[in-house]
């Protein structure tokens, strides 16, 4: 067997044997591959062949056409007014009122020749909006049998003579309007958002009416109620129609002021009553006047007051805010200090000062090195701390919570090791506490 003895190294072995080695793939691989090629080919944009891009394009075109057709049919539907209640009437921000008076074709031919020729007529009337509102409200009862407009509307109309053709001949208008007016009392037409108003249509001798409220809403009720949610000036228009398709209108302006928002925070978050001075942080918006009620009978008009309570209790804190326009809002925090916590906790180790007794008085800042054994606490009134050695001998005692143990006993530094502590006392709310534990005295 070992006739051909040609020794080569590992690298040569593999490169010579395997570099051009051929392995027969499974027959299924080819069909699988060609299927994948076909799929990928289909996804590739190819102008010569129908593929996914064309199908997608056709779909999009189809959908677009359908949508366009649909909206077009909707639009044409709108163009054909179905009755006098449809939008014959438009207002814009410049207080121009455009009135389309649709003249019915009359049966008596001789009397209304000029009208017959023009069945549609556009009439533009300028109405100063400031005057409209108060004057409209004055017109309460119009004499029956005559055509009467609110003065603000009537004057420009007659001056311009625009209505002459359509309504000057009183005899023709026996079934026409007797009076057009709607009333909004001036004092309710200004208010704070959301403003709810009821409108009264005091017109007589009409067949249908339509209110447009200037915020996109409308109503066909006689006396509708409407809520204005957003601040702003709204032009409210009442149109009345008679059977002949004639219409008249009247307007009023409703002013909606923004409502302020009362918002505040109490700090410190976990205040301890009655010790802590409480600060109230004011986050109210749109407000100029503030009325605080701290819940203990004391009030304040300051923007951000501070207050100290005289005893522990549950208090509701109220803030009422008032805006420039007299709009108000209020916020109540019920039981504002329920989050206050009373606690007393001791550490389990400390490192006394090796240079000599420190006396044991501490503050949170001065004792960063943990040289004094003392509690962290809140709301503690009565306090009695005792520390025992392992033999049970009392080596330290304190009834002053500000006086901790410095690790010395009779001027001598105590041995490092474990000591037992016991504390008893009362929290400010009267609840007693007893705690005990051990503390390790570490050597510096």
């Amino acid at each position, binding site marked *: 067997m070992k006739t051909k003895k040609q020794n080569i190294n590992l690298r040569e072995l*593999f490169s010579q044997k395997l570099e*051009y080695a*051929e392995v027969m793939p499974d027959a299924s691989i080819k069909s699988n591959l060609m299927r994948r090629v076909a799929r990928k080919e289909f996804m590739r944009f190819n102008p010569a062949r129908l593929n996914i891009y064309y199908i997608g394009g056709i779909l999009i075109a189809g959908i677009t056409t359908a949508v366009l057709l649909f909206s077009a049919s909707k639009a044409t539907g709108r163009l054909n007014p179905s009755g006098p209640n449809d939008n014959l009437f438009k207002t814009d921000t410049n207080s121009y009122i455009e009135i389309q008076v649709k003249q019915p074709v009359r049966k008596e031919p001789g009397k209304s020749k000029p009208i017959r020729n023009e069945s549609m007529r556009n009439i533009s009337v300028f109405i100063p909006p400031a005057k409209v509102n108060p004057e409209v409200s004055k017109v309460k009862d119009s004499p029956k049998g005559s055509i009467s407009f609110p003065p603000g509307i009537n004057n420009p109309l007659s001056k311009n003579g625009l209505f002459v053709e359509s309504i000057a001949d009183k005899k023709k208008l026996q079934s026409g309007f007797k009076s057009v007016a709607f009333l909004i009392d001036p004092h309710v037409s200004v208010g704070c958002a959301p403003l709810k108003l009821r409108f009264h249509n005091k017109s007589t001798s009409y067949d249908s009416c339509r209110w447009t409220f200037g915020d996109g809403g409308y109503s066909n009720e006689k006396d509708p109620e409407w809520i204005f949610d957003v601040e702003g000036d709204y032009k409210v228009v009442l149109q009345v129609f008679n059977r002949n398709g004639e219409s008249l209108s009247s307007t009023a302006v409703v002013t909606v002021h923004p409502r302020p928002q009362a918002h505040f925070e109490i700090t410190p978050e976990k205040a301890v009553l009655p010790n802590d001075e409480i600060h109230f942080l004011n986050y109210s918006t749109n407000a100029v006047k503030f009325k605080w009620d701290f819940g203990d009978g004391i009030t304040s008009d300051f923007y951000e007051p501070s207050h100290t309570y005289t005893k522990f209790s549950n208090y509701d804190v109220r803030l009422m805010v008032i805006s420039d326009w007299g709009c108000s809002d209020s916020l109540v925090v019920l039981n504002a200090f329920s989050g206050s916590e009373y606690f007393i906790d001791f550490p389990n180790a400390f490192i006394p000062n090796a240079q000599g007794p420190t006396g044991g008085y501490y503050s949170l800042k001065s004792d960063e090195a943990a040289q004094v054994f003392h509690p962290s606490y809140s709301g503690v009134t009565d306090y009695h701390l005792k520390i025992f050695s392992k033999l049970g001998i009392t080596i330290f005692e304190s009834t002053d919570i500000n006086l901790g143990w410095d690790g010395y006993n009779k001027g001598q530094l105590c041995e490092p090791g474990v000591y037992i502590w016991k504390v008893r006392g009362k929290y400010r709310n009267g609840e007693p506490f007893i705690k005990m534990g051990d503390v390790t005295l570490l050597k510096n």
Partner: protein
Amino acid sequence: MMSDQQIIELCSRHDRKAQQVLYDKYSRLLLGVCLRYATDKAEAEDILQDSFLKIFFSIKDFKGSGSFIGWIRKVAVNTAITHYHKNLKYRYHIEIEEYESIETGVTSFEEDFYTSDELYKVLNELPTGYRMVFNLYAVEGYKHKEIAEMMGIDINTSKSQYSRAKAVIRDKLEKLGKLKSSYSDLI
């Protein structure tokens, strides 16, 4: 029989027939390449399919400079590397015991003692990282610097993986050799 030139021309126009001819002509050679980089034949065939997809859809990029075989081999090798990177997170990280990379034991081999099937098997059993580097260096003839760039690894990693791969292969070949000679002794 179409020439390579004709096949390339037709394939660049996405001719389905030419693609099949190309596959029939080179699939065995490319599978031979892919199998060196895979753990088994199934994986090799996956790589083979991906390689052919790449070849079919980017045959326009073959400039005609250099050999076509060299180009498709390179595509297959790159696909294998992509495959390795893609599957890296799914593989268990097989850390074999540290092989001393000292050149001990057998350093020379008889060329015809091992069949190519046996050599494939040895490669397939290698940890994937070792296999990649060993193939790229020993068979494809890339430099460690190039391998480091292709694999996205450190150049020293490439070197140490190669020497470890060699040690593992040598070990395996030795065992296989003993087995084979005992077998042939029996005959």
